[in-house]
């Protein structure tokens, strides 16, 4: 009995205050309206015989309706007070942070994610009953349970969780869950801590922090680039330890021979990295005849710590010598003067060809006097595009001169546009994703912006043909454009985890080259992309891609990153929760609606009957 009572809970206990008021009001109404008028009469001598049946009927009827409305009142108050059965109706959302940093090892020798799983299982076993739904945050918020999952299934869901090679998405996950799902409690299992302790108090969002306090640090890769011109490899490493460390860097080449992929050490070197610093390391030129490489990092001399082993490897695939810059134009490359730019690889396609094949394997795109239906997944340069959904081009305004430009932008920093003669000038409405770059007396003629992860520049004047020294100012500007937009892409010989889907054909059969260091095999179990080498069998061709994950934030695992959940957000979500959550909320609302309807029907029938009776008497 006591345990049953203790399982009752009220989300908004202040709502119970409505009970005495409601009860008082109900009794008052009954006294005033439903109770028959009391009349003192001289004598009941002649009236007694008429009283019995009416009185009996009233005795029967009064309590029925009264108790009916009393029930209605109790239900209403229960609804206002967000009544629920703890342990029976409590809905808890377990959100396990499986971002990259959760792969770091704790002092107890297990990863943070493993620790979080144990905490979650403990929490689950401590509270029997209720509904527990399990979510993982990365690479996107996904529920691992389903409606009606048993405890065993919930436990399995927790145990099955794996590290995702992606950045932290905890805030978004919490906000999304709190605003969209009815829940009594959201428990976060993460290595993060509240930015402000006060914001966590009295919140239904609880943070079950995984212990991260450690004097140990981490070492890892933050970037890797291979120049396609000379195949020189440059990597960036980070040391978050408090001491200077000697890191051993080893380059392995992977031989692709059928289904066996042996690995051979090419060379190794030791570099010294200052405490809590990053360092760019040039690892020399990669052999021309080899295309697939793995670069491994380890701490030499067993000094310092390496809490996260998953950021100690870089994968490289130089199968495509150089990704081309796709030039969508009706003209030829020579007409545009691009054939003279030998350091860039251009691939000319017509607008019709581009419409048929989106050319996703590209370092970037130049759209010359055409505009795509939507911006492609790589950086883009649009020269005098016609008006479209992407860009609204105003009518030709006639002669105009450049009035101003953004001097601190890398594109325009060294160019005096006043000395340029702009041909075929057109001006744009500046879209939301861009900012003005070059402004003329007739409007904005150049914009720059980012859409998602890619850069985009649109110019309302002609920069081609590239004339080199014959038009030095314009040539500098054009080279600036190509360098800023495409150079970075052309030096990368791998895909980042988050971009694999955009760049790899979805129709192909994808398999991982298993990471067994000596003899790698194929692994078809791809639920999420992770760093490594993949083989894509597409129709008659087979391609290999290298995938890496770099994140300075996630690799700095010794620093506990703060969790920013605004108090306002939590209050807001609490309100939503109070409104929608609770075992009885929806059922209660339905029941109340039904009962009110029944009561109203009874009331109207009674009033009609009463009116009839009065009129007849």
């Amino acid at each position, binding site marked *: 009995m006591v345990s049953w009572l203790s399982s009752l809970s009220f989300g908004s206990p202040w709502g119970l205050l409505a009970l005495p008021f409601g009860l008082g009001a109900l009794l008052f109404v009954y006294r005033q309206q439903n109770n*028959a008028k009391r*009349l003192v009469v*001289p004598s*009941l001598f002649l009236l007694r015989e*008429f*009283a019995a049946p009416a009185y009996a009927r*009233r005795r029967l009827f009064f309590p029925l309706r009264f108790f009916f409305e009393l029930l209605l009142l109790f239900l209403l108050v229960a609804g206002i007070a967000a009544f629920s059965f703890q342990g029976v109706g409590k809905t808890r959302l377990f959100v396990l942070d499986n971002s990259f940093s959760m792969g770091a090892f704790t002092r107890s020798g297990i990863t943070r994610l493993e620790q979080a799983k144990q905490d979650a299982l403990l929490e689950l076993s401590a509270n029997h009953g209720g509904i527990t739904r399990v979510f993982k945050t990365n690479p996107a918020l996904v529920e691992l349970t389903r409606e009606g999952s048993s405890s065993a299934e919930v436990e399995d869901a927790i145990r099955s969780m794996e590290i995702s090679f992606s950045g932290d998405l905890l805030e978004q996950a919490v906000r999304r869950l709190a605003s969209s799902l009815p829940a009594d409690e959201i428990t976060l299992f993460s290595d993060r801590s509240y930015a402000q302790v006060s914001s966590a108090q009295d919140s239904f969002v609880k943070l079950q922090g995984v212990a991260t306090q450690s004097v140990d640090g981490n070492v890892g890769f933050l970037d890797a680039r291979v120049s396609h011109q000379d195949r020189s490899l440059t990597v960036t490493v980070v040391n978050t330890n408090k001491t200077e460390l000697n890191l051993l860097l080893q380059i392995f080449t992977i031989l692709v021979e059928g289904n066996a992929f042996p690995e051979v050490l090419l060379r190794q070197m030791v570099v010294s990295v200052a405490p809590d610093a990053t360092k760019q390391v040039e690892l020399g030129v990669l052999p021309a005849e080899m295309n697939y490489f793995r670069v491994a990092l380890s701490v030499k001399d067993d000094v310092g710590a390496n809490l996260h082993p998953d950021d100690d490897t870089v994968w490289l695939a130089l199968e495509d010598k150089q990704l081309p810059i796709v030039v969508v134009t009706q003209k030829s490359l020579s007409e545009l003067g691009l054939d003279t730019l030998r350091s860039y690889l251009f691939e000319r396609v017509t607008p019709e060809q581009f419409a048929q094949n989106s050319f996703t394997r590209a370092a970037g795109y130049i759209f010359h006097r055409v505009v795509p239906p939507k911006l492609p997944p790589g950086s883009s340069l649009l020269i005098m595009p016609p008006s479209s959904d992407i860009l609204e081009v105003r009518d030709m305004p006639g002669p105009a001169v450049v009035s101003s430009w953004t001097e601190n932008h890398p594109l325009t920093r060294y160019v005096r546009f006043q000395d340029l003669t702009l041909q075929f000038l057109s001006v744009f409405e500046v879209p939301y994703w861009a900012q003005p770059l070059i402004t003329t007396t007739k409007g904005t003629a150049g914009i720059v912006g980012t859409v998602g992860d890619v850069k985009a520049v649109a110019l309302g004047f002609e920069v081609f043909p590239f004339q080199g020294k014959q038009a030095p100012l314009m040539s500098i500007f054009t080279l600036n454009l190509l360098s800023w937009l495409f150079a970075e892409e052309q030096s990368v010989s791998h895909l980042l985890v988050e971009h694999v889907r955009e760049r790899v054909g979805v129709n192909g059969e994808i398999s991982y080259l298993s990471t067994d260091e000596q003899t790698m095999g194929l692994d078809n179990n791809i639920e999420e992309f992770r760093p490594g080498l993949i083989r894509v069998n597409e129709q008659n061709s087979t391609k290999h891609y290298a995938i890496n994950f770099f994140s300075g934030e996630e690799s700095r695992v010794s620093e506990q990153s703060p969790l920013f959940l605004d108090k306002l957000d939590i209050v807001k979500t609490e309100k939503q929760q109070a409104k929608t959550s609770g075992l009885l909320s929806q059922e209660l609302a339905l029941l109340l609606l039904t009962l009110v309807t029944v009561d109203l029907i009874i009331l109207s029938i009674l009033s009609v009957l009463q009116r009839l009776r009065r009129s007849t008497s």
Partner: protein
Amino acid sequence: MFSEIFTPQQVAQLELLTINTKRSLIGQRYGNHTSLKRGHGIEFAEYRRYQPGDDPRHIDWGVYARSDKMYVKTFQEEQNISVFLILDTTSSMFAEADQAKWRYAQELLLALAYIALAGQETVTVCIPGVVTSFSFNGARSVYHLSKLLQEVKPVQPPVVTKAMQVATGALKVPGIAILISDFLYSLDEVMHHFGILLAKNLQITAIQMLGPHDVDPLQGGAEAILVDSETGEEVTLNGDREFQKRYQLKLQQHQEALRNLATHRSVTFAFTGVDQPVITFLTQRLSSLGVIS
């Protein structure tokens, strides 16, 4: 209070009325009614043989001349009568919202008392709760009576019965008894009350007066909890048309039974509603019944 109730014109009207008796009664002093007592009245009663001791002045010498026998003439003496007024002061008389019934009862009592007192009758009142038995003489004493009425508080039915018994027992001569009540109690009780008065050989007039609540207990309402003013008992009534019809029938039956009982016990029964003016009731209804002339 009396002067507040009745206008001078109405008082003059009342002074023209007198209490009637159906038979001769013995009074306590000289008055306007022919008494059973032989004496020096105006109205010839009978001849009787002279007996020694008779006043020789009463010998009818004319008869002696014709018959050579001595007869004396006797006359009926004129005396006043005793008027016994009993007022029901149970709670039922006060139960009306505006006490219309009680005010009407007071007016009626004062009017009857004034008629009697103005006719030099001896008026004895029994107002349970205030005075059990108190006699008045002279018209001016009506003011005293009116003061007494202001002190009346509702009493329970047994108090009334007891007071009637005591007051009737205290009456020295038989006379006229006028009982003012709503008679909303059992016929047995009514019979008991009549019996008390008849035991003293009183000529009884029972005046039943009913108020609006007696005629329509729910006052047009559909449903009400009715509380008995005397016992506090509560009943809930559903005032539909059927009830109204049955109640009116019930009331009529009760009044008919009262009337039959009164006839059977030689009691004059009169009914009035509080909406009928007292003067009208006296001059028309009671007059037609021979209670007042």
